[in-house]
């Protein structure tokens, strides 16, 4: 839904966000953007989930010691400037990514279970089923406070070809975020579409009254189709009914967004860079623009819940630009050959390097009494550790930010007992005042995030 505000003056240009640098601004292209939409005085704690595919070169990831004064490793080195904003968490697991009798398909399962904690049903499509993901549990609770209930971004377009992994539907490896057990929230992979979602794609030359009319049309049309789908619901059964339910849910959510948008009396800002035309050819540029858009969305409080998939699980991407011509997935089956590991590590380092730019942006962005990073919990990790052996335990996980004082970063915490990832999510959600009984296979909350 495109929120239509009158075109803006520069006075309200959002300042302080690092993303403005480097990208030229074409004022002709900047549409109306309704932003920092704090709807109330309450604190806005954000949760961001960043996913790196195909596991990690653990050799170059895990710090040798626990506690505060650990030595950085090759992959984490880039985070030295953020040491005091970062928790390294070792010993977390995603048990439901394991085969549990279902055979191959660890990559699909890693993707499907990472944020749901549920064992994905082994199916190429007929009855996809996993669970609602942590970000969506949060979005259900607080999504109505912002213009967008959540934002899902991906840095790998997947006009999918064939089955994705061992008879698993591509939905599992494409989507980390699940609205419901059989409704994936596929990531948006086109920067331009993300931009338009955040800043609007409407013609800014339209007169305000025309826009108001169009908005009214949409509301009325949504009313109309709800009526129609209700009558349809009575006549369809089985899976068809599920589809109509999905449709109805989507319609209601869009309606709510329109209402939220209309209610919010917000300042106007400019996005700070021009509308991207498409997907940049180089991966680095691609990831950067997606991170920039995410940072913009967080700072303007367009949403408080963001998921970013750096590549889909099982990704075959080649990284020629950093001298790694191998496909990522085949390379991740390195057979412990040191030269393969070196190249794999290079990819992992490239990802953390790109991600560190995002962290830097959040840290540079003022927000209330601190920075956006202070008020966020930014998770970075993968659903596999050693992907050569498809290990779903001892996952590589980082947590950045202070969660508005609810985290005490600056340490490497090692959980001796294998602990479900979902316990971490439950804890994060708790700190956003989202009270969930459980998520997937969670057994409680994790400890030591504030103390030692």
């Amino acid at each position: 839904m495109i929120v239509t505000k009158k075109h803006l003056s520069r006075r309200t240009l959002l300042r302080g966000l690092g993303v403005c640098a480097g990208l030229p601004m074409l004022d002709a292209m900047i549409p109306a953007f309704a932003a920092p939409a704090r709807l109330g005085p309450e604190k806005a704690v954000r949760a961001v989930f960043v996913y790196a595919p195909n596991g990690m070169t653990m050799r170059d990831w895990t710090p040798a010691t626990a506690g505060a004064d650990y030595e950085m490793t090759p992959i984490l080195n880039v985070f030295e400037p953020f040491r005091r904003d970062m928790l390294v968490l070792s010993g977390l697991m995603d048990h439901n990514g394991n085969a549990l009798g279902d055979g191959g398909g660890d990559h699909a399962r890693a993707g499907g279970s990472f944020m749901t904690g549920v064992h994905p049903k082994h199916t190429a499509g007929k009855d996809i089923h996993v669970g609602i993901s942590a970000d969506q549990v949060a979005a259900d609770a607080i999504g109505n406070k912002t213009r967008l209930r959540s934002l899902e971004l991906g840095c790998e377009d997947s006009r999918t070809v064939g089955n994705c992994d061992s008879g698993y539907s591509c939905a599992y490896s494409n989507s980390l975020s699940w609205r419901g057990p059989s409704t994936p929230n596929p990531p948006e992979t086109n920067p331009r579409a993300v931009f338009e979602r955040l800043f609007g794609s409407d013609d800014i030359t339209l007169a305000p009254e025309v826009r108001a009319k169009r908005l009214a049309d949409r509301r009325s049309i949504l009313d109309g189709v709800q009526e129609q789908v209700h009558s349809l619901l009575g006549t369809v059964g089985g899976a068809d009914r599920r589809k109509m339910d999905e449709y109805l849910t989507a319609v209601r959510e869009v309606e709510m967004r329109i209402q939220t948008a209309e209610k919010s009396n917000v300042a106007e800002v400019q996005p700070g860079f021009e509308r991207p035309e498409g997907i940049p050819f180089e991966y680095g540029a691609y990831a950067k623009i997606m991170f920039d858009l995410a940072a913009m969305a967080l700072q303007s409080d367009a949403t408080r819940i963001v998921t970013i998939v750096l590549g889909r699980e099982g990704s075959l991407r080649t990284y020629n630009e950093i001298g790694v011509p191998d496909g990522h997935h085949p390379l991740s089956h390195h057979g412990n050959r040191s030269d393969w590991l070196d190249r794999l590590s290079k990819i992992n380092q490239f990802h953390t390097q790109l991600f560190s730019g995002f962290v830097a942006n959040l840290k540079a962005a003022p927000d209330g009494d601190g920075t956006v990073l202070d008020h966020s919990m930014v998770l970075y990790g993968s659903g596999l550790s050693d992907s050569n052996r498809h290990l779903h335990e001892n996952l590589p996980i980082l947590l950045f930010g202070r969660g508005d004082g609810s985290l005490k970063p600056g340490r490497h915490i090692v959980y001796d007992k294998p602990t479900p990832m979902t316990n971490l999510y439950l804890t994060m959600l708790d700190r956003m005042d989202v009270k969930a009984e459980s998520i997937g296979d969670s057994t409680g909350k994790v400890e030591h995030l504030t103390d030692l």
Partner: protein
Amino acid sequence: MPLRYLIPILPLLALLSPSATTPSFQTTVQPFMAKNCFACHNGQMSSGGLNMQTMVADGSVLKNRDEWEKVLKRISSGEMPPKSLPRPNEAELKQVTGWLQAEFDRADKNAKPDPGRVTARRLNRAEYNYTVQDLLGISFEPAADFPQDDAGYGFDNNGDVLSLSTVQMEKYLSAAETVARTAVFGAQSAKPVTARYQPFGRRRPGDFDNLFFNTHPWLSLTNYDESGLMMPNAFHVTHRFPLTGDYVIRATPDNGNRPGGSEPLEMAAFVDGVQVGLTSIDGQLEGKTQEFPVHVTAGEHWVAVGFPRQFEGLPPLYGGKNPSKRPIPAGRGGRGGRGIPGAAPGGGGVLGANGRGRGGAGAANNNDDAANTTFFTPPGAPPGTVLARVDNMGLQSMEIGGPRNADTKPSPESLKKIFICDRTTPGCDRRIVSHLARLAYRRPVTPTEIDRLMAQANRAKLRGDSFEEQIAVAMEAMLVSPSFLFRVEKDPPAKSVEVYRLNDYDLASRLSYFLWSSMPDTELMHAADLGTLHRPEVLNAQVRRMLKDEKIARLVDNFGGQWLQFRALESHVPDFYKFPLWDNYLRMSAVKETELFFGSIIHEDRPITDFLNADYTFANQYLAEFYGLRDVKGPEFRKVSLEGTPRRGLMGQVSVLTASSYGNRTSVVLRGKWILENILNAPPPPPPANVPDLDQAKVGEDATLRQRMEVHRANAVCASCHSKMDPLGFGLDNFDAIGSWRDKDGKSPIDASGALPGGRVFRGPVELATMLSSQRDAFAQCLTEKMMTFALGRGVEPSDRLAVRKITAGVAAGQYKFSSVVLGIVNSTPFQMRRADRTGAQTVAHR
């Protein structure tokens, strides 16, 4: 055979062979198993995860149908028992396979027919675009920005997997507005913008030598692609133009120049292969941006910029065609001295070519760099002759700017499709809305449905909007309706109906979305109105008509692109340094080749075995060079014979060979798996959950690929599948990761011998193709199942077996013609019928 003939014969047989009883499981299959299978497939070993000792009860064949189907397949093909064990007695084998098949057939015949149940399908991106285009005569692609569609069973039109998120709904609303308003009022004007492209994996100095004169030694300055399109310095992109209008293609050359004394260099722009502009540049190229104004229709186009006739107008000594008539500049030759004195421009014309062909300000200035330079030696020139580089020209970037003077009037076609009556006639608005809704919902619409849409129009009317505005708002509502966005097939109201035949409208939709990825056209709707569509003669005539329509190209793109996976080339990035020949032009050419090839099989209704062993294909000069065909000149695609080349069918095409490789190397496993999955219908089971590590130390660093793979197969866990995949893949090993021919992989010579799963041995790709095409029934079944998955939008289930077998038999009877597969599917029970499912229905009161 009529029954009465059978009656006397049976007792006679019994008489002749008094001991023969009716063959049963216990007398035929069981002893055969004990003799040939139990040694490995027993409780202890369970080889391949199969313990056949538990499958000995009488009813086992039907109870464990899946396993037994596999057993039948493996023993029929000769794959089992493995070659290391004695062959079973042929007569016994025949009896067993015959008995099993008969048992399956009997069971299928007696089973309650189950046509399966296709879940309501949301239009995917391609279908949405085509549907609104066909419905309203617009020409842009509103779904281009929709979220990606997930795929299930290999295709992105699977009803169960196509979900609908909030974002998707937002896109639908916004697209409905754009589509309706464009159709009624014309496209909203767009601000001109500039898209900038940089050459794909920038070329480096010396590439010409490496790419052409070394790898294509028959090419020379007088024999090359004169259009310039296939030369390494051409640049190709696919660009989406938002509106029909005027655009500017702007190309900026890299630093560089031609040898002194050359005539101006030409630069040309092409849209969809047609030259749209020609300019020329004299002297230094740096900074001399060229602009080509073009008028382009909305949508995706292939845009290219290149240097035509680039080896013409050179100084005569180079030996190119149409040499320069200009004098060679005097005074600049003095400082070089490496070329022929006085003749070589720039004193030997040595251009400092380090750093991506950046020549520097002039030949003579760069002699210090001689060590880094590439010289040009004219073919047939006296030894020691070196001249200036002739390839020091490239593109830094290309920009496409626009639109200006965009066509923002509604198209006459749109207006004709919408405004079917005179607006001054009372009730015209309702007529328009009813007419469009019937097409958009692909069925007759109820007065209530029209009322709902008219309510939107009336709301606009009340606030004083124009007639067009009223229609547009109603159209918007139509385009976000579930009846438009989904293909819902409603069960008949009578609760006693378990299985039913689709009504003609639903059948028309299944047909049109299968073959055209779009809504039924007027003829199909007319046949549905008459209620005759389901009649075989009407249906078959419609199918034949549809196969001839140009919209069938959508089947090639959507079905073919996913079955053969050439869609994957869009995001496939081969290692540039290993495969410098790979560029956008090759990518686009490769896809085009396979599309044309597939299309011609449909148009000419060729046998499907052409997919496997056709000795023809479609090529432009670039592909032809790849395939060793020297007399194909120019960028146009044409049908070419592959006789005398090692390429046959799909598996000789760059698209398939590249899509079944990794970016930096080939994989016999990937290619073998590709053949098993997409040709032989014998997909290997997924790899086990925890693959044991290959002991690399044991393999040794210098081992050939084949040796490595053999070590791999020595491991029993790996062997069961890899012994099938790898030998097939080896047959294509002469083709590298972009489908180019090679005799060696690194240092090791290629050994392209291998074997089919049954053990039949072949040498090289041509024999592989021949042998695969002799497995035409397996292939027919494979193609049938893939196409059925696509046609139905659901996976093929065990209950579809009988239907698949019938279709496959029909394909054999129809000389394996392509149309026989399509007709078989369209006439099958799963395509024409549906199982009812009323769970959850009626729980919401009708409002």
